[in-house]
């Protein structure tokens, strides 16, 4: 399976988000994902990529992020993202604060919640000095996160 992955290494900077989307969209097309599935997948990747770009490396230190995808069959895409920054498992974050009050609702934290809601088989590993996060995306999932 691993040899089937297409990979790219980018500078871990926020201005590389467009390059990240472009790389992913090759996989989305190969997996024959529709517009809505592509948008949901982009959402996942943006959250993960921006998390690395903003937090993985100390300020002033430019690091790298490696992205990879594989398409085992139409409608299914496997994705990995890894960095060599400080050890951090984004999945350790606690439940999101869904305060029904506008004043009390926090601005942040929705990204990790969306990742956990949309992705399948989400896994984190600390492996040989790198953070490695992988997931599987299956097409045409229902938006069931609010239940």
């Amino acid at each position: 399976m691993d040899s089937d992955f297409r990979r790219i290494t980018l500078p871990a900077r926020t201005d590389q988000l467009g390059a990240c989307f472009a790389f992913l969209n090759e996989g989305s097309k190969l997996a024959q994902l529709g517009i809505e599935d592509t948008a949901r997948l982009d959402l996942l990747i943006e959250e993960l990529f921006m998390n690395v770009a903003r937090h993985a490396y100390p300020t002033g230190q430019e690091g790298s992020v490696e992205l990879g995808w594989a398409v085992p069959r139409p409608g299914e895409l496997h994705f990995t993202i890894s960095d060599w920054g400080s050890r951090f498992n984004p999945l350790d974050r606690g439940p999101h604060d869904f305060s029904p009050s506008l004043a009390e609702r926090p601005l942040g934290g929705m990204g990790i919640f969306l990742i956990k809601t949309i992705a399948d088989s989400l896994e984190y590993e600390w492996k040989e000095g790198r953070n490695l996060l992988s997931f599987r995306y299956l097409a045409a999932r229902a938006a069931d996160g609010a239940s």
Partner: protein
Amino acid sequence: MLEIQANDVGKAVVLHVAGRMDAETSVEFETTCVSWIDRGAKHLVVDLAGLQYVSSMGLSKFLAVAKALQPKSGSLSLCHLEGVPRQVFEMTRLIQLFPVFDSVEAAVASL
């Protein structure tokens, strides 16, 4: 890419938002809204008919603008919230925090 067209209709400022609202482009949405609030606008109606994508950064901008309007007894209303953007508002339960309308006319009439 995000396109925003603003139209002051008296009771409210209507913002027609089209394209993708991601970590990079959502800043423009917040800047535009804050600019109108600074000029005295109390009620913003955001027409999302052309919005194809919104990430958590985009969502946080909607929240920030609504929070800025709250002490002024203002409001941020959403129209034509459909497709994946609507799913994202529902997943995060943000849809409960905003008045949502089927049309710009209905949103303006509610003010």
